[in-house]
C-alpha cells in the first residue's frame, strides 16, 4: 500500500511542476518527483506505517492516503516556490509589501531574521512545540498520571467518522466536483443573463454542499463510534450565527455611531466596552439576565407583563440563540471599533460625487461604503470566525454547559470536556487537530473566495 502510494506520488510530482512552470527541465522533473515521494513518505514512516497494519479498517487507509497526499502536495509547493525563486519570479502582491521589497534598502538576508528572532523563539517554544505535541498525542490513548500510553494510530480520528470508506471518499469528491462545475458554469455564462443568475445560485448551493458533505462524513454515533455529527452541526450553527450577528450588528451600530452626534466620543467609547469582558463573564452576565429562576429578564417579563418566559436551557433553539446573542454581544464592540476606523477611510470625494449624481442613501451604502470597507470586513471575518471557534468555551460553560442534551456543545467545548474534564488527552488532541484543520481550511477558503472581491484601494 505504502509503495503504491509512493509510486503515484513519484508520477504526480513532475505533473505538478509541468502545470506550474513555464520551462521545466528534466532535472526539475526528477527533483519534483523525489520531493513528492519524500513528502508522501514522511507521515507513514513517522507513524510506523501503523495505518497499513493488519487490523486496520478502510477508514484508516483513507486517512493515511489523505495524509500522504497532503505531505506530497506540501513538498511540491515548497519545491515549486524554490524553482520560482531560482527563476527570479516575484512572489506576493503589490501594495506596501511590494514597495518595501523593491525599496531602497539593501541589507543582508539575515537582518530580518535577526529582528524577527525574539518573536520566532517565543512562537517556537509556546506555540509550535505544543502544536506538534498535539499531533503526536492525537495518535495515542493516554491519560494524565498513567503509567503507560498506547498507540492507536488514526483510531481517535476514525471513530469520529463514518465507517464506510467509500462514502467517506465519495462525499468530499462530490462536493468538490459540484463546486468546480458551478464555477465552470459561472465562467462560461455571460453576465446579466438567466444562465448567469442560475450559475450564481448554483455556486452558492455548491458552497453549502461542502458543509453537507462534512456533515455526512462525521459519525452519527453507535457501534463504538463517537457521535461527532451533532457537535459539527452545533459548531456550524453557532459560529455562523455569531459571525453574522456580530458583523452585521457591528457595522450597523458603527454606521450609526459614526454620524456627528452630541457626546459621540463618549458614546463610541462605551460601545467598545463589551470587548474588554472575558467570555466567561459574558456568559455569566447573560445567565443573570435569562436564568429562569433568578434572571432579570425573566423576572421582569413575568412580574410586569405576566409573560412566562421558557427556560432557554430546555430548548435547543433558544439555547443556541442565547449563546449566539451572548457571544456576538461580546465581539460586537471589537467589530464596531474596526468599522469605525474603517469608515474614516471611506473617500469623502466619492461620497460627494455620488451625492451630486443623485445616489440614494442605500446606493451610497451598498456601492461606495461597503466596497471601501471590504478589507476590514475580510479581516473581521477571519478574526470573528476564529473567536467563534476558539473562545466561546467560557460563555457556553456559564450559560448552558452544553445543554440541552449537547445541543450547545461546540467543537471547542467538546475538546475541553473530553480532553481536560475527562482527562482523555489523546481524544482531546485529535479533536483539536480537527478544529485546527477546520480553521485553516475555512481561512484558505475565505482567502480564495473573498480575496477576489476585497478592494484595498489604489490600483
Amino acid at each position, binding site marked *: 500500500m505504502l509503495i503504491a502510494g509512493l509510486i503515484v506520488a513519484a508520477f504526480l510530482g513532475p505533473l505538478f511542476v509541468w502545470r506550474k512552470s513555464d520551462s521545466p527541465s528534466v532535472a526539475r522533473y526528477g527533483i519534483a518527483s523525489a520531493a513528492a515521494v519524500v513528502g508522501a513518505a514522511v507521515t507513514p514512516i513517522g507513524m510506523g506505517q501503523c495505518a497499513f497494519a493488519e487490523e486496520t479498517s478502510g477508514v484508516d487507509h483513507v486517512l493515511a492516503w489523505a495524509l500522504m497526499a497532503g505531505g506530497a502536495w506540501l513538498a511540491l509547493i515548497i519545491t515549486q516556490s524554490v524553482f520560482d525563486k531560482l527563476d527570479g519570479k516575484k512572489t506576493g502582491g503589490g501594495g506596501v509589501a511590494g514597495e518595501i521589497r523593491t525599496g531602497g534598502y539593501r541589507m543582508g538576508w539575515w537582518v530580518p531574521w535577526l529582528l524577527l528572532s525574539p518573536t520566532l523563539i517565543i512562537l517556537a517554544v509556546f506555540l509550535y512545540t505544543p502544536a506538534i505535541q498535539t499531533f503526536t498525542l492525537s495518535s495515542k490513548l493516554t*491519560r494524565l498520571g498513567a503509567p503507560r500510553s*498506547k498507540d492507536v494510530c488514526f483510531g481517535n480520528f476514525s471513530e469520529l467518522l463514518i465507517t464506510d470508506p467509500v462514502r467517506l471518499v465519495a462525499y468530499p469528491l462530490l462536493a468538490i466536483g459540484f463546486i468546480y462545475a458551478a464555477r465552470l458554469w459561472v465562467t462560461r455564462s455571460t453576465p446579466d443573463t438567466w444562465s448567469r443568475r442560475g450559475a450564481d445560485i448554483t455556486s452558492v448551493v455548491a458552497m453549502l454542499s461542502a458543509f453537507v458533505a462534512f456533515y455526512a462524513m462525521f459519525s452519527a454515533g453507535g457501534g463504538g463510534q463517537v457521535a461527532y455529527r451533532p457537535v459539527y452541526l452545533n459548531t456550524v450553527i453557532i459560529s455562523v450565527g455569531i459571525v453574522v450577528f456580530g458583523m452585521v450588528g457591528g457595522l450597523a451600530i458603527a454606521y450609526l455611531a459614526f454620524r456627528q452626534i452630541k457626546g459621540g466620543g463618549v458614546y463610541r467609547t462605551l460601545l467598545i466596552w463589551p470587548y474588554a469582558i472575558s*467570555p466567561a463573564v459574558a456568559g455569566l452576565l447573560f445567565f443573570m439576565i435569562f436564568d*429562569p429562576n433568578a434572571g432579570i429578564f425573566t423576572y421582569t417579563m413575568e412580574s410586569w407583563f405576566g409573560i412566562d418566559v421558557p427556560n432557554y436551557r430546555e430548548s435547543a433553539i433558544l*439555547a443556541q440563540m442565547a449563546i449566539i446573542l451572548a457571544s456576538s454581544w461580546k465581539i460586537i464592540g471589537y467589530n464596531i471599533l474596526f468599522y469605525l476606523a474603517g469608515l474614516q477611510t471611506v473617500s469623502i470625494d466619492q461620497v460627494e460625487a455620488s451625492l451630486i449624481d443623485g445616489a440614494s442613501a442605500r446606493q451610497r451604502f451598498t456601492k461606495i461604503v461597503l466596497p471601501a470597507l471590504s478589507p476590514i470586513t475580510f479581516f473581521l471575518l477571519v478574526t470573528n470566525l476564529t473567536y467563534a471557534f476558539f473562545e466561546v468555551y467560557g460563555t457556553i460553560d456559564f450559560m448552558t454547559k452544553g445543554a440541552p442534551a449537547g445541543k450547545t456543545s461546540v467543537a471547542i467545548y467538546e475538546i475541553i470536556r473530553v480532553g481536560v474534564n475527562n*482527562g482523555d488527552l489523546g481524544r482531546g488532541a485529535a479533536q483539536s487537530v480537527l478544529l485546527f484543520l477546520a480553521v485553516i481550511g475555512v481561512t484558505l477558503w475565505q482567502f480564495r473566495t473573498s480575496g477576489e472581491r476585497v478592494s484595498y484601494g489604489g490600483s
Partner: protein
Amino acid sequence: MKYRLMVLAAAIALVAAACGGGADATTTTAADAGGGTPAATEAPGGGEPIDIDFWVAFSDEKRLGFAQDRAAEFNAAHPEYNVKVTSFASYNDVFDAAVLAVDSGEPPALIHFFEAATRQALDAVDSSGNKIFKSVTEAIGGRTEILGEPVVLDNVVSAARDYYTIDGELFSMPWNTSSTVLLSNMDILNAAGVTKPPETWGEVTAACEKVMAMTDAPSGCISWPNHSWFAEQSLGQQGELLANNDNGRSGRATEVFLNSKGMIDYVSWWKDLADKGYYTYTGQQRDWGGVDSAYLAGELAMMVDSSSDTVIHTEEAKDLGFELLASFMPRNENVPYVGNLIGGATIWMLDGMDTTKEDGALAFMNFFSNPENAAAWHQLTGYVPITEDAVDLLNAEGWYEAEPNAKVASDQLAAAANTPASLGALIGNFVGIRDILTIAIEDILVNDLDVATRLGQANEEANKSLSEYESLFGN
C-alpha cells in the same frame, strides 16, 4: 479622533494576538493564607519555616475560609511550618495541577480530592513511574501523636472509613463527607395536605400529585441536580452493584452496570416525575446552584440535595420564613432498603517529602480534623462530623437538639448495611463514566427517549471507556 481610533484598533489587535485563547485562568490563588499571623513567618532559631502547600478545591468564602483559618491557627501553633492554602475551581483542576507539578518538581504537600476519583488517585504515577500519593496510614505508622497533635485517623466515623479503606488501610484523610437528603418545604407540603416528608418513590409521586393540584401550586414539585451521585445513591439503597468485583472492592472493577434493573427503575421513576410535570429539570447537568435557587425561591416543594448544605439551607429557610425539614433520601418501596453511601472528598498526601516536612503535613491533617475543628466544620456547612469524638462533642453541646436537620445525614449513613453495594464503587475513569451517565439521563429527560435503550448505549460507552482505562492503568 481618526488616528486615535486607528491606534486603539491596532493596540487591541496586538493584545488579542498576544493573549490568544489562553485568557481563561480557572484557578485563583489565595495569597499566602497561612501568613496571616506574624508568628507564622518567623521560625524559632531564625530558620525559614517549611512551606506546606495545601491545594483545596473550594473557592467559596465559607469553605475556603475555613481551611485558611485552620491553616493560620496551625501556623501560629507551629511556627516552624507555614501551611499555604491555594484554591482551585474544581477537584479535577487540583488533581491535574498536582500531577503536572510533580513532574515539574514543585509538588504541593497535600491535595483535596474527591471520592469518585479514589481509584484514579491510587493509580496515578509520575513520569518515572512512581506512585504520586503516599498512604496516610503508612506514614503515620501507628503513632498516636505527631508534633503534639493527637492522631485522629483511627477515630474516623465508619461510613467514611469503610468507603475509603482500600486493601485494609486508609490512604487518605477524610475531610468533607456528606450523603443525600430530602429537604422539604413544609409550608407547601402542609398546604397540600401532606403532613410529613415522603419516604418512598411512591410517596413522593403521591405528594407531588397533591402539591401540583393546588390552585397556587409552585412551578414544580421536586428537583435534584442531574448528577450521577444520586443514581449511585439509589443503587446503594436498592442493593445493586455499579461495578463488578464487589463494586471494585475485592479486585479492580473491569465492568460497569449502567443499565441494571435498579438503574432503569430509578431513571424511569425520575422520567415519570418529569413527564407529569412534577420534577423540574433546570436544563443543566450538575446544576447544584440552579436547583438551590429554585427551591429557595419557593418554586419547589422538595429538593434532594447533598447534606453538605443542610445547615446553610436551614438557616436560609429561617431567613426566608419557611419551615425546612430534612429527611432520608426517598427509596424504592418495591425492594428492601440496603443503604446510602457517602460522597465528598479526602486529603491526599504526596509522596517524596523528607520526614520533617511529612510530619508537618501529617500533623496539620490531624489538627485539621481534631474534634473541635471537625465539629465546627459540620456546624458551618452540614457535612457529617468526620470523627466519633466530634460527634460526642456535638452531642455534649446539645447541638442536635437545636438543629435536628443536621443529624439526618449521619443517621442515614448509620442505618446503612455494610455491603459492597452501599459502600459505593471504586472504578477507574469514574469521572468519565459519570459524565456518560449524566449525558444519557439528560438525553432521556429532554428528548423523551426510552430509558432502557438509552442506558444500554451509555453502558456500552462506559464499558469501552473503562476497558481503555484498565489497559493503561490495570495490572
